[in-house]
């Protein structure tokens, strides 16, 4: 019988390699896998690349991981939230690399990775500083830039409920990047509030089917 649940949080974040590209869900705190990120901070992995919309706030979750010194590079759309002090300090000290990607392009590049699209042309960022150095093409009279897939080795995501097969539902706007990150990573690890029986979730409502999920950590609040 398939059971993707792991028995503790250390097992959830085990076997992550040095230099891994980690997709980390959430828009601000909503949908961020705080506990998984903090557990990862306690491992001895190093030289990580983090892909996330933001760069962490306060000193918890992603900020705690960044503070641990394990993050070499961040790929995100908006690292300048008022609370992103830890990141901004390291950035100013040139101790962390930053790659800013427009939010929709960030999401679409991960979708391309998950959907087997080799590259795509998007009008977003064409002609701007963020489009510099990219291949461009005029399509239907509009300048586009060519963007490539952004694939993760690991995705750390948050959800509301899972079953042992990895079927998942989310809560409100905390859904945000989790579904696309689940598709785009080789191994997807989900932190959920509740594990339910197989068949309990409405099949019309399952947002991320188990095919995209590898490990489930049930976080008892």
């Amino acid at each position, binding site marked *: 019988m398939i059971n993707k649940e792991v028995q503790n949080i250390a097992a959830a974040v085990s076997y992550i390699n040095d230099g891994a590209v980690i997709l980390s869900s959430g*828009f*601000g*705190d*909503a*949908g961020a896998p705080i506990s998984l990120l903090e557990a990862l901070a306690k491992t001895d992995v190093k030289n990580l690349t983090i892909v996330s*919309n933001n760069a962490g706030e306060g000193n918890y979750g992603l900020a705690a991981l960044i503070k641990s010194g394990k993050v070499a590079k961040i790929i995100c*759309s*908006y*690292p*300048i*939230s008022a609370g992103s002090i830890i*990141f*901004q300090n390291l*950035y*100013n000290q040139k101790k962390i690399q*930053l790659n*800013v*990607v*427009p*939010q*929709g*392009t960030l*999401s*679409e590049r*991960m*979708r391309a990775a998950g959907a087997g699209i080799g590259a795509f042309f*998007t*009008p*977003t*960022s*064409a*002609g*701007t*500083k*963020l489009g510099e150095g990219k291949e461009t093409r005029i399509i239907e009279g509009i*300048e586009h830039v060519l963007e490539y897939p952004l694939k993760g080795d690991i995705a750390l995501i948050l959800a509301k409920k899972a079953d042992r097969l990895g079927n998942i539902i*989310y*809560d*409100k*706007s*905390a*859904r*945000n*990047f*989790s*579904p*696309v990150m689940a598709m785009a990573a080789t191994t997807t690890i989900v932190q959920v509030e509740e594990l339910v029986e197989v068949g309990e979730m409405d099949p019309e409502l399952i*947002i991320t089917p188990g095919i995209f999920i590898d490990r489930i950590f049930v976080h008892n609040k």
Partner: protein
Amino acid sequence: MATIAKTVGLNRKQVAWRIAQEIPEGSYVNLGIGSPEMVANYIPDGREIFFHSENGILGMGPAPKPGQEDGNLINAGKKPVTLLPGGSYFNHTDSFAMIRGGHIDICVLGAYQVAENGDLANWATLDTTKPPGVGGAMDLAVGAKKIYIMMDHLTKDGQPKLMTSCTYPHTGYGVVRTIFTDLAVIDVIDKGFVVRELAKDMSLEDLRSKTDASLTLAKNWSVLNPPEMN
């Protein structure tokens, strides 16, 4: 009763009110972070408008009552909001498909600068000591059917924000439709600024002195005269 010193121009609420009047019933509207969020407060009663938030919400409602906040129900500025009946949630990729795909009728954004050809600069200044951050600004700029700008006519230092061309890094090119400032409503038509409304007691000459580009007065221009709001 003391006499209150009269200042020319609209306050922030009045600009939000003015923009709200411009949004037709049934529109799908994205409001940028900050002042543009205020536009939602002034939609005329009975006019049904659907607010989109880039983080995966359509049918966003006002802020919840104190104590009713839900950290999983926030807007693009990461502030608590509510969901109206008929609202829905979706993932980020689908949300930006809506934006980039031209399904958002109107997007109201703030700006550092707008050029007379509709170019927009609203994501970065020339200060390179801070890390850059763009969020969804570039996607919204290229994707929304109409971009409305809500901004002060001048910077805090008194510098013009309506320009012949942007000196700050571009967000998008030729994308701005209409600019709503504290002093005027200005359309971008045929790569030029056309003043459609002027604040009460504001002259075109005054406005020109505060603008670093040519201004044309629309034939059917009118006085921008919102209700009192404090």
